[in-house]
């Protein structure tokens, strides 16, 4: 059973994301390291508050060596991001839509620290599928740019 939801996530709390060496370039993370799902742009992160220590976010599958840590704070999430998506009427030109990134507590029975960063469509804030792969990738790139890499010890 999961712990009760604990929201809002404080704007200063660090939300961790573990990385392979190949997913770090200098002090930035590559967008290719973020799994955002097939339709709804959302990305798993691990809350500092529920980790005994940040390194616990490195735990993965046996044989997978996560060696680097990155984090983003809710206050540092990207400003509203505008992307171009196909018009529902395919005969009409693409339309531009704005999205806002929000941090959502999402504990699971096995991972107390689990949370998600989701892209909510403006102006209503609904979290809905984004029906353009290019638009989803653009949202992912915008999010990746806001992560900070934890320096190696």
């Amino acid at each position, binding site marked *: 059973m999961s712990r009760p939801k604990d929201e809002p996530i404080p704007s200063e709390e660090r939300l961790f994301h573990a990385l392979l060496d190949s997913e770090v370039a200098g002090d*930035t993370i*590559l967008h*290719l390291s973020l799994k955002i799902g097939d339709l709804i742009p959302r990305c798993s992160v691990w809350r500092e508050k529920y980790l005994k220590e940040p390194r616990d976010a490195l735990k993965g599958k046996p044989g997978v060596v996560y060696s680097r840590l990155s984090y983003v704070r809710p206050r540092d999430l990207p400003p509203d991001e505008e992307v171009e998506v196909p018009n529902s009427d395919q005969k009409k030109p693409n339309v531009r839509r704005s999205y806002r990134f929000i941090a959502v507590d999402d504990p699971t029975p096995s991972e107390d620290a689990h949370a998600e960063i989701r892209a909510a469509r403006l102006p209503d804030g609904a979290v809905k599928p984004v029906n353009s792969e290019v638009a989803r990738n653009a949202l992912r790139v915008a999010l990746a740019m806001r992560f900070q890499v934890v320096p190696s010890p």
Partner: protein
Amino acid sequence: MAGSAPSAFALAGPSDQGTAPLHGYNVFLGSQGVTSTKGRSFVMVGLSQDVEGGDPYARLLQIARLRSDWDGRGAPEPSAISVIRALEVVAAMEDTPSATFDRLIPDANGGIGFVFLGEKPGERYASIDCSNSGQMMLVLVDRRKRSHVVRELEAERQALSDAFAEIDAFLET
């Protein structure tokens, strides 16, 4: 040659056998992953190793052998069409000697990415993303200016050649 490969794979899913001649390689795709018939053997050596340099075909074949959840967090395995798209990128690079990527890595969202790093990798990088749906995208990231470009790339030689030139110009400015 490269242009004919995707259609050869159009009906082949990850568990199906298929073959396609591509850039001198006769590539088999099947339940054991992708192998070539040039008498070479490819062994998974761990994702954190050999991430820079090396033979792009060997690296690509390593990635193509990944299976679902290769990262322990539910990442999809690279699809057949993403492998073919990546092979097209490698083949196009061989026609454009100045085009060299720095990393070839699996995409946590499914697919394969070619990463090009600037002199200060933390400030600028570019990538060509070959997604599991077969779509190719050009990504230009300037972290210092907090700006980025993401757009669709046509899967054909001229578009790839133009993309290499655009990446060069982006990383050099």
